[in-house]
C-alpha cells in the first residue's frame, strides 16, 4: 500500500507541475529534497538518542516491567477470552507500556510475541480472534506520554513551548482508544460465534 501511495504522490506531483508549467519549482524541489531530509534527520537525532538512552534505564531497572504489571487488572477486563495466566497478557502489557513511553523499538517485539501467543489459543488459524482485534485496536490508538519525535521537531522550529501539545494529545488518544474499545465491545457482543 505504501508503495502505491509513494508512487502516487510523485506521479501526481510531476504531472500537475507539467500541466501548470511549474517546471522550475519541480526541478528545485527534486534537487533540494534530499537536503531537507538530512535537516529533518539532524533535527530528530539528538532528542531520539537522548530519549532512547533514558528509556534504556527504565527498561534495565525494571521500571517498565513494573509499569506493565500495573496494567494487568485492566487487561483481564479487556480480554475476557484470554486465560488469566496466559503469557500473551504479559506481552500485551509490556507492549502498551513501551508504547506509552514512546519506546517503539521495544513495543514491536512484545506485540509480535503477544500475537504469537494469541495465535496458539486460536482455533481457526487463518481468522483473527476477538482478543487479537481488541489488542490491535488498543495498539493502534497508541497512547504516547512522551512523543519524542514531535517534541524534537517543535524544538527545532523554535516553538515557545514544545511540550504544550502533550496533554491534549494524551486526551485525544484516550478518546480514540475508548471509542475503539466501545465499538469492539459491541461487535463482540453481537457476534459470539467467532469466540
Amino acid at each position: 500500500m505504501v508503495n502505491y501511495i509513494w508512487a502516487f504522490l510523485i506521479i501526481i506531483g510531476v504531472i500537475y507541475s507539467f500541466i501548470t508549467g511549474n517546471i522550475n519549482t519541480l526541478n528545485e524541489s527534486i534537487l533540494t529534497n534530499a537536503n531537507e531530509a538530512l535537516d529533518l534527520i539532524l533535527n530528530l537525532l539528538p532528542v531520539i538518542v537522548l530519549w532512547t538512552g533514558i528509556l534504556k534505564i527504565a527498561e534495565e531497572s525494571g521500571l517498565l516491567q513494573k509499569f506493565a504489571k500495573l496494567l494487568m487488572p485492566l487487561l483481564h477486563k479487556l480480554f475476557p477470552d484470554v486465560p488469566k495466566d496466559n503469557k500473551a497478557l504479559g506481552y500485551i502489557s509490556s507492549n502498551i507500556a513501551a508504547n506509552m513511553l514512546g519506546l517503539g523499538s521495544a513495543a514491536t517485539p512484545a506485540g509480535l510475541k503477544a500475537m504469537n501467543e494469541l495465535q496458539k489459543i486460536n482455533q481457526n488459524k487463518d481468522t483473527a480472534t476477538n482478543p487479537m482485534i481488541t489488542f490491535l485496536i488498543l495498539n493502534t490508538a497508541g497512547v504516547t506520554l512522551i512523543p519524542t519525535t514531535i517534541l524534537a521537531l517543535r524544538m527545532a522550529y523554535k516553538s515557545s513551548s514544545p511540550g504544550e501539545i502533550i496533554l491534549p494529545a494524551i486526551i485525544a488518544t484516550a478518546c480514540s482508544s475508548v471509542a475503539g474499545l466501545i465499538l469492539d465491545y459491541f461487535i463482540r457482543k453481537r457476534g459470539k460465534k467467532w469466540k
Partner: protein
Amino acid sequence: MEIISKIILPLFVVIIIFYGVKSKINVYDVFLEGAKDGLITVFNIFPSIIAMIFAINIFLDSNVLGFLISKLNNFLGGVSLPLEIIPMAILRPISGTASLAIMNDIFKVFGPDSYIGRLASILQGCTDTTVYVIALYFGSIKITKIRHALWGGLFADLVGIVAALILTYLFFG
C-alpha cells in the same frame, strides 16, 4: 493545564533515573548503551525519511493541493477548517514517516505554534500507523481474515482526529 504539560517531561526523567539508581544499575553506562541503539534507529529510518520527503515535497510543491483545497472551499462554502491538515490525516494511519514529513512542512510554512502547527503535532501524537501495524502483526502469524480489525482501528483513528480538532480549539483556540 499548561503547568501539567510542562511538568510531564522533567518528572519522567527524574523518576526513571531515580528508580535506576535505586535498583543499583549503572545508569550512566546503560544510558550510553541505549543512546547507541537510538543512533542506530535514526540511521535505519534515514532512507525512509529521504523517500517520503522526496515524494511529499514533489506533491506539495506542485500545489495540486492548493487546487483541490480551493475546489473544496467552494464546495464547503467557507467552513474555516485548516484543510492543509487533510493529507496528513489521510496518510497518518498508513505511514508515520509520510505524516511526519507533512508535519515538518506545516512547521516550516506556518510555524509549530500556529493553530495548524499545534493541530498537526496533536494529530501526529494521538494516532498510530494503524494500517502498517495491522499488516505487520497479522502478517507475522499468517492471519488472512482480519474481520473488523482494520475498520475498527480506522474508526478509532477518526475519533482521534476529531478529538484533536476539538482539543486544539479548546486548548489554544
